[in-house]
């Protein structure tokens, strides 16, 4: 049995990205055309191509898997763990949570936030943000890498 996947929040992901981690976006290309992560190092590898292309991913660098709400990216995280990758984590909440926190994106963030609310994860209305990319001080405290919590679709 595989170990529990490491999960990181958007705040930690932003920090890791600035420190050299590679974000791997597994959404399909039409989703990414609407809204994309705006980070220094990003690789697009849609789930439809993932099994065929995953060998392109480096094993000697931190990888953070991302998608819309964190479900597909969790599956991709486990797949990489199955393939022997050790420096891989899933970003919980997906670009929906990332955008809600006001972190850097290109495209229409409000659509992603709205669609996440009507998905399986439901959730409260998004907190208002005034843009900008600084992680909140409160957010920093919650964000140590941790095993996946059991239960729930998110």
């Amino acid at each position, binding site marked *: 049995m595989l170990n529990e996947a490491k999960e990181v929040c958007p705040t930690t992901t932003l920090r890791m990205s600035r420190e050299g981690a590679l974000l791997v976006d597994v959404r399909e290309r039409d989703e990414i055309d609407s809204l994309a992560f705006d980070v220094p190092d990003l690789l697009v590898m849609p789930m439809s191509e993932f099994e065929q292309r995953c060998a392109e991913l480096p094993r000697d660098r931190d990888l953070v898997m991302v998608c819309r709400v964190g479900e597909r990216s969790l599956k991709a995280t*486990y797949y990489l763990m199955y393939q022997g990758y050790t420096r891989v984590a899933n970003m919980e909440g997906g670009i929906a949570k990332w955008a809600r926190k006001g972190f850097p994106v290109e495209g229409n963030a409000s659509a992603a936030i709205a669609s996440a609310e009507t998905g399986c994860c439901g959730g409260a209305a998004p907190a208002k943000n005034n843009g900008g990319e600084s992680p909140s001080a409160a957010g920093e405290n919650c964000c140590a890498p941790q095993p996946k919590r059991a239960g729930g679709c998110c």
Partner: protein
Amino acid sequence: MDIKVLGTGCANCRTTIALIEQVAQAKGVAVNLQKVEELRAIMSYGVMSTPGVVIDGKVVHAGGVPGRDKIEQWLIAKQA
């Protein structure tokens, strides 16, 4: 014969289970059929496309509902 059907509970997974039960009964083959629905457990077999079918620890199918002919071959092969 231990058969595991991997999948998070979608219609294709349920269909696969029902089909295996039907074929096993029709062929008179005793099977121990289990559902594996938890993502971590599914991915421990390296199966990205579900439903997946594992027979005696080996992945024999991944993605879509297997055809009846294919299921019969699995059951007959194990009987031999």
